[in-house]
C-alpha cells in the first residue's frame, strides 16, 4: 500500500488526465439530455469539482464518464429544484432515468460527433471554432488554450462566452449534418483539427509541453473522428498525415535544439510506431476509394517515409501526387511545393521557372522565400539567394527556423 502522500502525487496527474479524457464525452451527453450548452457546462463543472475533491482520495472510478454524469445529474436536479415547475422537474428526472449506478462508460451513447460539429459550425468564426473545440471536446483549460494561441486569458474566455451565446441566440442546432451538408461540414472540422496540429508546431518552439499537448490533442480529435465516421476517407487521411508528421518529431531538432529540415534529418530517429499507425490509416482510407487532399498529402509523407535516405526519395511519385493535389485544390502553395519537387527531379533552374511566377501571390509567405533562396543558391546565383534568405529570415516567426536560415545565408556569404 503506498503512503498517502505518494498516492496523492501519483494520482493528481492521472486525475487530470482522466478528467480531460472524459470531458468531451460527458459534455456531449449532458448537452443532449439538457438541451442547453451553457447549463451542461455548468453542471459538468460542478461534477468536476467534486471529482477533484474525491478522486485523489478514493482513487479513479472504473467508469469515470458515468461517475461524472451521475454527479452532474444530482447537481442539475439541485439547481433546478428552486427554479422549475413540477412538470419540468419530472421531465428532467426522466431524461436521466436510465442512468443507473452500474452504467458502463461503453454503454453511454457517444454524442461527441454532435458536439464536434456544433463547435466547428461555419457560423462561428474560425478562431472561435478552434477555441471551442479545444475546450469542449478536448477538455483543455482556458488558460492553456489562450497560451496556445498567444492571446490573454481574458480574451480567450470572452471568445468562448460569446461563442456559446451565439450558439444559443442563433439556435445553432446540436446535430450531425446529413446528406450533402455532411461532407462540407466534415471538411470544416478537419480544417479546425489540422489548424490545431499546425499551431502545435509553432508553440513547441517556445513551450515544448504545450506544443506537445496540442499535437496530442489534435491527433486524439482526429482519431475520434475516424472512430465516429468510419466511412470518411479524409478523416483517415488527415489522421495519417498527422501521424507521419509526428513520426519525425525526434529528428526535427538536433542535439543542440536546432531545427533540421526534412532532407537533412536522421531518418533512423523516425518513430516506427507512429509510421505504422500512419500507414494503417492511409491504407484503410485507400480502400474507401474516395481520394481527397488530406489523403494525398499523407501519401506524399508516406513516400518520404519509404526512403531510407533523402537521396533515395521517389520524387517522381511525389510530383505525381502534387499534380493530383493541384487538380483537387489548386493553390499557389501547392504550386510552390511542386516547384521544389521539380527542382529535385530536374535541377534548380527548372524549379525556379515554376517558382518565380508565384512571387506576386506569395510575397508574404515565408516558405516561398526560403524555397527561392535554396534554389537560387543551388543554381549558383548567390547574391539573389542572399536577398531571398533575408526575406525568409525577416518573415519567420520561429526562432529555430530563423537560426537555421541564418546559418545557411552565412555559409553562402562566406563562399562569396
Amino acid at each position, binding site marked *: 500500500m503506498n503512503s498517502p502522500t505518494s498516492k496523492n502525487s501519483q494520482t493528481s496527474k492521472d486525475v487530470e488526465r482522466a478528467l480531460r479524457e472524459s470531458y468531451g464525452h460527458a459534455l456531449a451527453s449532458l448537452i443532449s439530455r439538457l438541451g442547453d450548452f451553457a447549463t451542461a457546462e455548468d453542471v459538468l463543472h460542478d461534477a468536476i469539482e467534486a471529482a477533484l475533491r474525491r478522486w485523489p482520495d478514493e482513487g479513479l472510478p472504473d467508469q469515470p464518464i458515468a461517475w461524472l454524469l451521475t454527479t452532474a445529474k444530482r447537481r442539475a436536479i439541485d439547481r433546478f429544484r428552486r427554479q422549475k415547475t413540477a412538470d419540468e422537474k419530472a421531465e428532467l428526472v426522466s431524461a436521466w432515468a436510465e442512468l443507473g449506478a452500474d452504467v458502463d462508460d461503453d454503454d453511454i451513447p457517444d454524442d461527441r460527433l454532435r458536439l464536434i460539429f456544433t463547435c466547428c*459550425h461555419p*457560423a462561428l468564426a474560425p478562431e472561435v471554432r478552434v477555441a471551442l473545440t479545444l475546450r469542449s471536446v478536448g477538455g483543455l483549460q482556458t488558460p492553456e488554450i489562450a497560451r496556445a494561441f498567444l492571446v490573454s486569458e481574458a480574451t480567450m474566455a470572452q471568445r468562448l462566452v460569446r461563442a456559446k451565446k451565439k450558439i444559443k*441566440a*442563433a*439556435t*445553432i*442546432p446540436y*446535430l450531425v*449534418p446529413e446528406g450533402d*451538408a455532411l461532407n462540407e461540414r466534415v471538411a470544416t472540422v478537419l480544417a479546425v483539427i489540422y489548424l490545431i496540429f499546425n499551431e502545435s508546431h509553432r508553440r513547441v518552439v517556445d513551450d515544448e509541453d504545450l506544443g506537445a499537448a496540442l499535437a496530442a490533442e489534435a491527433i486524439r480529435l482526429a482519431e475520434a473522428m475516424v472512430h465516429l465516421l468510419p466511412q470518411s476517407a479524409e478523416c483517415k487521411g488527415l489522421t495519417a498525415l498527422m501521424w507521419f508528421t509526428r513520426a519525425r518529431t525526434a529528428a526535427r531538432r538536433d542535439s543542440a535544439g536546432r531545427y533540421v529540415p526534412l532532407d537533412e534529418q536522421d531518418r533512423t530517429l523516425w518513430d516506427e510506431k507512429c509510421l505504422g499507425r500512419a500507414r494503417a490509416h492511409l491504407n484503410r482510407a485507400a480502400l474507401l476509394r474516395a481520394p481527397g487532399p488530406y489523403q494525398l498529402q499523407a501519401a506524399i509523407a508516406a513516400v518520404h517515409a519509404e526512403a531510407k535516405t533523402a537521396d533515395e526519395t521517389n520524387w517522381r511519385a511525389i510530383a505525381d501526387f502534387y499534380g493530383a493535389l493541384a487538380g483537387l485544390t489548386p493553390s499557389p502553395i501547392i504550386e510552390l511545393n511542386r516547384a521544389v519537387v521539380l527542382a529535385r527531379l530536374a535541377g534548380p533552374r527548372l524549379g525556379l521557372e515554376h517558382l518565380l511566377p508565384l512571387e506576386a501571390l506569395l510575397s508574404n509567405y515565408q516558405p516561398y522565400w526560403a524555397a527561392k533562396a535554396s534554389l537560387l543558391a543551388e543554381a549558383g546565383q548567390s547574391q539573389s539567394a542572399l536577398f531571398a534568405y533575408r526575406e525568409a529570415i525577416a518573415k519567420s516567426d520561429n526562432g529555430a527556423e530563423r537560426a537555421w536560415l541564418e546559418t545557411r545565408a552565412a555559409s553562402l556569404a562566406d563562399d562569396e
Partner: protein
Amino acid sequence: MAQYALLIYSEPGKGPQPETPAFGNYMEAYGAYTAMLKEKKLFVAGEALTPTTTATTVRLRNDDIVTSDGPFAETKEQLGGFYIVEAANLDDAIAAAAKTPTAAFGSIEVRPIMTF
C-alpha cells in the same frame, strides 16, 4: 422554431439589371422563392425595397430632426430587400438564405429575431 431576418445585400450594377430580359427572370425567381417559403410554412414576411437613391436617413439630434439624402451608410453592397422566416434552427435559415436569387452575386445576412 425561431425567427430570422434575411437581409438581402447586393452591389448595384451587379446581377440582373432592370429593364433587361434577365431582370424579368430574376423577378420570377423571387416569385417562386417566396411561394416556396410559403408552401414550406417558413414565410413570415418579405418585401423588396426601392433603390438606395430613394432612401432618406432620419436622425434625432438635440431635439432636431436631421434628414439626409441616401442610405445611412455608403456601402458597396446595399440593402435591397428582406424576408422574415420561421426556421427550426440556424442551419435551416442558412439553407433558405442560400436559395434567394440574390445569394448568387450578393450577400444575405441572417440575423435571429430578438425574443423578449
